[in-house]
């Protein structure tokens, strides 16, 4: 009965919830829109520089306090489908949000304060982190984990400005992958790069990126086998654009990249700041900021 009624209940709630809540693409408060690690994946003994796209209704924020830290949290999948799950919002089990404040988190490291930070991972720290993340595993599993999954090093940042506080997280993957990931190139507007000045007052925003000839493939592990080993699955990067602005809203909010360009319809009344964030689906991130004149 529980499974049978779960979706109808969700459906009822969904239909009746034409909530007057704010659109997520409208920047009307202090927000973190993206976090970028350069490079997004590192090998043991390597390091990555971290920057965050922190914005507010007035545009990009430079005067906020940004505190960075990193940790390793045990991976435990997503226990769900419990014997009584759906009646209460949120998971039925006590798994809560897994973060650096979690009791099980380990190797919590302060990365400093400022607009950017740096994460460095020593080789022996990687070995310790593997145990924290996955426990003591068999040799074959460890080899899969080292070469493919790596350790998802969790980076957290807390942004404060006045009374406003926002938190964000990002995973920097530390692994012995043969070909670590790269960040995608910055989005471009109408063929012009970021920082090329104010755009005219337009209602349709078209932008794209310098796309690779083919999207890069990579591997992930799935815990789907019954003997505790992992299934290796081939994936292909899927690039997505997300649009945010200080006025108006977009349709759609997120565009999956299937060609070189993406188009958003933007309804707004005033001049505004516009941000486009490009993600490659496996941790690579870039973004672009433009100011746009008021519509005619």
């Amino acid at each position, binding site marked *: *009965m*529980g*499974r049978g*009624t779960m*979706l*109808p*209940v*969700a*459906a*009822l*709630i*969904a*239909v009746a919830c034409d*909530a007057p*809540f704010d659109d*997520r693409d409208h920047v009307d*408060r202090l927000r973190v829109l993206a976090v970028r690690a350069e490079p997004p994946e590192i090998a043991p003994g390597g390091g990555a520089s971290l920057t965050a796209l922190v914005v507010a209704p007035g545009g990009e924020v430079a005067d906020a306090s940004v505190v960075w830290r990193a940790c390793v949290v045990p*991976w435990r*999948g*997503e*226990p769900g489908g*419990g014997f*009584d*799950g759906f009646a*209460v*919002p949120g998971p039925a089990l*006590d798994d809560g*949000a897994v*973060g650096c404040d979690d009791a099980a988190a380990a190797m919590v490291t302060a990365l400093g304060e400022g607009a950017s930070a740096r994460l460095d991972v020593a080789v022996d720290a990687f070995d310790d982190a593997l145990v924290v993340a996955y426990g003591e595993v068999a040799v074959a599993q460890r080899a899969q984990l080292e070469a*493919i*999954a790596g350790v998802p090093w969790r980076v957290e940042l807390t942004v404060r400005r006045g009374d406003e506080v*926002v*938190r*964000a*997280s*990002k*995973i920097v993957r530390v692994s012995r992958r043969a070909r670590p990931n790269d960040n995608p190139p910055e989005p471009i507007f109408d063929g012009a790069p970021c920082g090329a000045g104010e755009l005219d007052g337009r209602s349709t925003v078209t932008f794209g990126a310098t796309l690779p000839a083919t999207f890069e493939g*990579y*591997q*992930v592990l*799935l*815990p*789907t*086998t*019954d*003997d*505790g080993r992992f299934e290796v*699955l081939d994936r292909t990067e899927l690039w*997505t654009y*997300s649009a945010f602005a200080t006025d108006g809203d977009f*349709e*759609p*909010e*997120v565009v*999956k990249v299937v060609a070189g360009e993406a188009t958003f319809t933007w309804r707004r009344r005033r001049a505004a700041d516009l941000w486009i*964030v490009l*993600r490659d*689906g496996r*941790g690579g*991130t870039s973004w672009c900021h433009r100011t746009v004149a008021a519509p005619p």
Partner: protein
Amino acid sequence: MSGARARWGRGGALLWMLICGGARAATIDGELFERGTRTPIAGAPVLLRAAHGETEPREVLTDGEGRFVFDEVSAGAWLIDVFVAGYEPMSRAVRAPAHVVLRLAPSDTHRTVVGARSPKGAPVIGVAGDEAARVPGTSGDPAKVVGALPGVARPMFGLGDFAVRGAGPEHTGTFIDGHPTRYLYHLLGGPGVVDPALVGGLVFYPGGAPAWFGRAASATVAIELEDPPRERWHLDAQLDPWKAGVLASVPVGDGVVTLSFRRSWLDALLPLFTEGLALGYTDYQLRWSHALGERVGVTVAILGAEDRLHVVEGKGSRRERIDVALGFHRVTAAFAIDLSPCLRWVTRAMLGVERSEQRVTEPASPDIALGEDAIASHLLTTLAWRPARGTLLTTGVDVLWRSTTLDSRVPAGAPLGEPTPAETDWLVVDEDARDVQLGVAPFVHAELDLGAGVVLTPGVRADVDIAPVDSLRAPTIDPRLALRWTFAAPWTLTAMAAIAHQPPPPALTAMVPGLGSTEALQASLGLEWARDGWLVALTGWGQSLDALPRSLDDAWVLDRNGERVRAAADGEGRALGAELFVRKRVGDGVHGWLAYTLSRAERRTPSERWRLYERDQTHVLHAAAAIELGREWTLGLRFELASGAPTRPVIDATYDADGDVFAPRWGPVDRRLPLHHRLDLRLDKTWRFDTWQLQAYLEVQNVYAADNPETLVYDYDYGRARGGPGLPILPTLGARVVY
């Protein structure tokens, strides 16, 4: 016609003829029916008296077909008077000779109540179909009355999933004519899946059900179907804003054939008001009952139901479509024979198919779907022996075979090697599985009237798996014992203790064959006072649940041998409560009940401490009443009050910069949604014509439009929350024609 009265009638007429000088003799005959139904009224006294003069009146009784005859009557004016308990009196002037057809209208305090039979000693609430149908909020459907009974937690949106005495809704066993059924109610708070005109009664056991009911850890809801009147053909058509239905029955020999069909038109109606929701459902029954002599009865039926729900929410790239389909179709056969005056053998068999499918579709994302197809067969054979007055022994076997095919296309969770996939890039995995279960359960049940007001109802049932042979579950024994002791009329002490087992659902046993059954330990102790149609019952109860199953399929859990654990039966539950039930039976113009439940239900898994169960409701109050206003008007009221569901507030949320989503951090289950309260009203009116009747009702659910949020909904970053939707004010106007 009784011999003495008939002789007196004929003698009186002869005497009258002699006194009056030998006027010409004539006959007055006729038929007596219930007005509006064409049901003959048998054994009713009919009085004949002269319209003028002071002759002695004559009286005859109607025969089995409602016929009566006054012969040797002089020509002229006469009066016929009929006084029958439960009907309005009638006086009709006739001029002999004459043939008259008399139709008596039922009085407002009379109602035909067909109660479902239930064991004498078992802790049970039986509700006759007619009584239940007039409870507001049921829309005339007796199957929906369960939600107003004691011990039953208020379901979200009034849906038909009833959690009883701290157990989950999945632990409530539902049966139609003794066969387990996948669901009793259409989706989204719809009516029962059986035409109300075929519902003879509904029996609700909050625990300790008779041993022939099994494979349910907690309560039992059983609907018994009955035939329309056999002596005439019958037509019953109904219409309301949600659906239309028709039922027809025709006597065939010593039996009756009945066909009913209902179809909602919400799938046509709702799109006129919203683009986001479409719902359609259908149910049908074809039923043949036949009596082979006085001792043998056979019933064969085909019945089924189909539901389709389509929901579209969001817009643009976040537009999501949810499709839900449920259905079952089955053939049943029942054979009952009285082997002797004290020995009865009943066998019921069922073969059917069941289907459920849930699918979520988003633009540019893979579909997510869960499908479950099952072929099921159930056999229940019982032999009931009444060796002495007050003693009934029942034994039998319950056999269930079910072959389930599952096909799923679901998110793989978080794969290792990439961040949480964005909403546009779910990684889905396809999986097919099959689960076959064959279980045999012999049982013994007894009802023992030990005298001195003591009725003992012991029973035991053994559930033994026969298949799958490579992963048999350990056999389970379910003993149960109920006691009723009327120690000083009208006071009765009631007690019940039972152990019940329920196998995990096929979706879990397909992953982990042999996964253990949930075990429930149930106990109750109560005191009843019953007099003059009133019942007041106070009952305390406790229930513990062990080996509650859950899926670990999305997690990475290994056992000591390094084998992956995909499901576990390691949850525990416990609940304590008390119920007050005050009931006024049909009669005297008012009937109804008040049910109040005070309880606390908790759950835990091995890694948890005891916490509130999500369906825990400290206070649940139902008050339902129907008042006969006269001239066949009935006013029904139902008030519902229940503690808000426990909820886990979001403490804060972190923006997941890789997945472009906010991840909430949930607090403990330490808050509740606001108190739920709601009033429903229902006004019924019957217009009774000679051979048919028109019934109409106006029902308003949530009369004062109480804002009863069923959940909290959050802003995209969980920064703000507000109460989610609840049932709005919902008026319904319905009509029914019965011929």
